[in-house]
């Protein structure tokens, strides 16, 4: 995966398969603490304790088509490459939190990428779910939520392509304002 946004898209697929109705993605980056952390929280069905112990093993998966689940294993590998870590907290019936922490300045820490585009796709493909995106840097923080946006625009679902593309721009522009690093502002990868 070339960017962290693609890793996030991958982990969110797990939340979707767990039947989550609300997914919260939080990114915190700081040059002062030299930490870059990503947290993905969902209210899906959770992971049973016996599986939770081995959940980052690529051969442990609840998928049926192939006997491998690479998402968490890959994110863990990327985090540890930079001297960071990955932890997964989960409670059956309540939800799951995946936390990945990276050393911000490490050469192998990938750029964030087109996170606005990732949110656009997630919202466009799942119009009945709620998504929240929080991002904080040393210069400020930004928060986006589908619930707040729909409420403000007085609509019940975000399905219009123009609106989705505008949301992508809005998120990326606001992140540039708070000096979020590694953004990919053009459509593409």
């Amino acid at each position, binding site marked *: 995966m070339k960017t962290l946004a693609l890793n996030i898209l991958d982990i969110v697929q797990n939340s*979707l398969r767990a039947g989550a109705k609300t997914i919260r993605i939080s990114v915190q980056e700081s040059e002062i603490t030299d930490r870059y952390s990503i947290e993905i929280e969902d209210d899906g069905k959770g992971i049973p304790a016996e599986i939770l112990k081995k959940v980052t093993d690529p051969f442990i998966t609840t998928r049926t088509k192939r006997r491998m689940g690479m998402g968490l294993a890959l994110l863990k590998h990327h985090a540890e490459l930079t001297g960071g870590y990955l932890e997964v907290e989960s409670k059956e019936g309540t939800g799951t939190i995946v936390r990945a922490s990276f050393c911000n300045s490490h050469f192998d820490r990938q750029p964030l990428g087109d996170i606005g585009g990732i949110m656009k796709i997630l919202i*466009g493909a799942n119009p009945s779910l709620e998504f929240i995106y929080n991002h904080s840097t040393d210069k400020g923080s930004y928060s986006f939520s589908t619930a707040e946006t729909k409420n403000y625009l007085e609509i019940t679902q975000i399905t219009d392509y123009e609106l989705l593309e505008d949301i992508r721009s809005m998120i990326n522009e606001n992140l540039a304002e708070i000096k979020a690093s590694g953004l990919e502002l053009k459509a593409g990868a």
Partner: protein
Amino acid sequence: MSKITSLADLKKKREEMKSGLDLRTKALDPESIVQVKVSMATCGIASGAKAIMDFFLEQLDRRNIAGVVTQTGCMGYCYAEPTIEVKLPGQDPVVFGFVDLKRADQIIEKYIKTGELVDGIIPVNYQSIDLKE
């Protein structure tokens, strides 16, 4: 084109476009429209499925095709990613592999618009496995 940076900007733009929007918000019966599912497992995402998903979301809208684009997990064809499944109304779903932007465009112009099959179909024999006794 002025930048959109706030919810207020979004609202203003929508109010300006209002007449065009009303036509698009009609209740759609899933069985009567095209359903496109883009495989979004690790293999798919790493191979470029994001750009394909984006392309279908945009182009079905631009070309005025009644359809819904969603994601699905790994369909098992990791060697052929990005893969998509297209279900035309009243027909069995068809899986296409090695979908790049050019092929995605062909799939819309030929298969979705006219039903003409395009290169890169992955044969999926659900029925023959079920019927085998």
